[in-house]
């Protein structure tokens, strides 16, 4: 267990180092941060002053050492847009994104298990075909468009739900559904195909030959095995949502989370803030990966954390 954790943390370290390198190369070597961050009207003197102030006029090697040093002190620099430490803004917005992901992914997980299982029981039956079709739709509708359609229908036409922003429970409904849609589609298809596979396995024949009642064969025997790939995919959904897939939903619904902040940072050319978001999320993903590995172990006794 200890060795496993160590290896996982080592891998996480590699991820963080990789992200550091990419961010550094992209921001300091490929692009010109001074040009990006200052308005076009800035004079050469202003540019030079700004470069000097944030240390961009030093040799690239020194810049890298400073960059890494700042990161280890969790100093991501000051947001140009809000004139306060970038990390503060990130930590302020992060919980909103986590709440949105919790609502959306929770919805997808809760719906996909029963739907996929029912569909799998009679492949080719009408529930199955409906599920496959809904799954295909969920995979095919662009998320931003689906969100806008929901707004047009439920907020503009019917006036039932708020169009955007964050507040009480009603504010969660449309963004959560929008975020859930593609995840639900993927998860439901996985549960369906995995359940079909599992129901054809020899151990299910054993269970049937034992005279076990149908619900037990399906829910205990087959479902328990389906959970193994299901947890893997659900973990992937969680990570990819964090990795930026909430950006679209947050933009459509003006949800004040990290994704929307990232888009605002881009519009305001606030490179330091964007950088802080990327690093925070990278570290968060590393931590979640370790957590997921422990969950895998609980679900699948064959995995050994050695």
């Amino acid at each position: 267990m200890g060795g496993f954790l160590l290896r996982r943390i080592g891998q996480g370290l590699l991820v963080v180092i990789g992200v550091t390198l990419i961010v550094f190369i992209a921001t300091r070597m490929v692009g010109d941060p001074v040009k990006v961050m200052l308005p076009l009207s800035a004079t050469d003197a202003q540019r030079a002053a700004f470069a000097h102030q944030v240390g961009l006029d030093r040799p690239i090697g020194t810049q890298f050492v400073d960059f890494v040093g700042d990161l280890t002190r969790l100093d991501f620099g000051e947001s140009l847009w809000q004139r306060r430490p970038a990390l503060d803004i990130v930590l302020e917005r992060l919980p909103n994104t986590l709440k949105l992901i919790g609502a959306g992914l929770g919805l997808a997980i809760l719906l996909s298990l029963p739907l996929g299982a029912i569909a799998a029981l009679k492949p080719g039956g009408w529930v199955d075909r409906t599920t496959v079709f809904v799954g295909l739709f969920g995979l095919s509708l662009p998320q931003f468009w689906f969100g806008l359609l929901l707004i047009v229908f439920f907020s503009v036409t019917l006036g039932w739900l708020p169009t955007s922003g964050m507040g009480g429970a009603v504010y969660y409904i449309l963004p959560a559904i929008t975020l859930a849609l593609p995840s639900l589609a993927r998860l439901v298809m996985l549960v369906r195909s995995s359940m079909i596979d599992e129901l054809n396995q020899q151990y299910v024949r054993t269970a049937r030959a034992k005279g076990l009642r149908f619900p037990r064969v399906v829910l205990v025997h087959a479902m328990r095995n389906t959970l193994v790939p299901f947890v893997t995919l659900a973990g992937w959904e969680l990570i990819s949502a964090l990795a930026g897939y909430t950006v679209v939903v947050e933009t459509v619904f003006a949800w004040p989370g990290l994704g929307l902040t990232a888009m605002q940072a881009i519009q305001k050319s606030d490179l330091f803030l964007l950088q802080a978001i990327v690093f925070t999320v990278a570290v968060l993903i590393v931590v979640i990966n370790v957590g997921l590995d422990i969950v895998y172990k609980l679900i699948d006794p064959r995995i050994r954390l050695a």
Partner: protein
Amino acid sequence: MNIPAMSSQEPLLEIEKLKVEFDTRRGLVQGLRGVTLSIGRGETLGVVGESGSGKSVTAQAVMGLIDMPGRIASGDIRWKGRSFLGNEGERYARDIRGKEVAMVFQDPMTSLNPVLKIGTQIGEVLERHLGMTRKQALNRAEELLAAVGISAPRRRLDQHPHEFSGGMRQRVMIAMAIACEPQLLIADEPTTALDVTIQAQILELLAELQQSLGLSIILITHDLGVVAGLCHRVAVMYAGQIIETGQAEDVFERPAHPYTQGLLRSTPRLDEVSDRLISIEGTPPNLVTPPEGCSFQQRCPLSGEACKKAPQLAHIRPDAEAACWQPSVPAWANPLMSPTFTG
């Protein structure tokens, strides 16, 4: 057809003119083409035949495991006189299967649920059929594991299948099958996937259980040696039909059907010195379009005009039947006639 059971009581299981079909892209495969057999209390029946002959399909039909694209087309399966088929039969069968008739499968590596504990998998049968509580079931499961020769059973209950060897898993499967003290155990090639030394142990265990529990056993195998050691009666299957049946000793001493004769010639024997094994040339017929007449005629050295008409099982001795127009004629007497020699 009527095979006399060992005891005078009514048979436990009767299968009558059972037909099973598989609807595939290549056409309708006739898996079973009218199989009739029965087994009485305390009896051991060996079902032999090569792969695809329908022996496993027969067992699956009894256990309700024929799935799409397969289906039972006609015939009947009766347990103590009551049918397993139809809606009411299905309901009846569900209470019988796992309790009065249980099955052990060929591959112990895939037959156990990989993510559930052994204790759960044995215990659930007891909870289902005998209404035990979880705790009672686990205690009984411990006894069962001990009974099939697994040491430290209490500790083993908490383990998962991947922590067991192949032979041990088959023992677990057997413990699960005998959990409710069934009257009939169907063992579908129970030793095929195991090492030779383990095979003998498992067969010994089955023989012991048969003695101690008074079990009837249907042993499905392609290994004639296994049948000889364990079975009272034997049924030989070919191309979805039973082509010969009788007392095991008789069938081995005086095989009547040319296929049985050929099968025996291709089996190594310890009690006879022979320097080569002889296989039967050709392959079993395609069951999409089975040949008119005797299904063995293409491979049979005796085949003639009469074989264009399908032979039915008929008595050749009071307790033996064969489906052949020229039963008990030595078909492979002349070594020059049997074309293939394998060292």
